[in-house]
């Protein structure tokens, strides 16, 4: 996962790229011909200094290696922004950025 958080005045512009196949369960393996099972990030939570600002639920129809951009008000240098995701297989990831 990668994050870029940029302060523009008192608004933090946050761009996040997650690395995940986001399998729809409809695709076949080109070699074996077998269906590749459904596998997707279904929950994403962003926090600002520990307080949840965005709580997202996703389907498998979010693009592979999901990108999301959001903006947090009332931000200042030193503030911490975290993003957590969890997929339908229970895998999780987390990342943190500090504003400067």
């Amino acid at each position: 996962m990668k994050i870029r958080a940029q302060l523009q005045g008192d608004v933090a512009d946050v761009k996040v790229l997650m690395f995940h196949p986001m399998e729809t369960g409809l695709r076949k393996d080109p070699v074996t011909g077998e269906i590749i099972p459904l596998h997707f990030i279904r929950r994403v939570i962003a926090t600002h200094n520990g307080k949840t600002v965005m709580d997202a639920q996703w389907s498998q129809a979010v693009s592979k290696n999901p990108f999301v951009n959001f903006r947090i008000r009332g931000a200042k240098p030193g503030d911490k922004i975290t993003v957590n995701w969890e997929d339908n297989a229970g895998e999780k990831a987390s990342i943190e950025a500090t504003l400067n």
Partner: protein
Amino acid sequence: MKTQPPSGKSSRREFSRALALGSAYVATFAAGWLRPFQSLAAEWNKTAFDAKVLADALKSIGAASVIESDQVQLKAPEIAENGAIVPVEITSRIPDTQTIYVFADKNPQPLVAIFDIAAGLEPFISTRIKMGESSKIRVLVKAAGKFYVATQEVKVTIGGCGG
């Protein structure tokens, strides 16, 4: 091409390209897998996401009636060559926006994403979605118990669900 505009599509594209190339972009990042989250998955709206037709998906989020509004701004391409990556940008000017819902009407399951907007977050989301075929993208905004909607037709050249 290496300039860095303050915001907007070119900035995002630049960012994505930089990530894809693995260039030494000035980014603050750290490796993941740091801490577990507390049983978040319990709140995933299975009924709404599993719905196979739009009407059922709308029903299961409680959107019995919706109001068309130019205060919900939806930016998406008119033609998407690749249905696997359709950029969608949503801005709500409706006061007290609580939730933003994204649908692709003709996808096998129309509901794509739900974003709960807590205090402190601008009612703005930009992301990329998959579309199985040409259809409307439909964005609902929930504010003070009411639902507001904006739609845009997107023509998909190559579908992005199977393959």
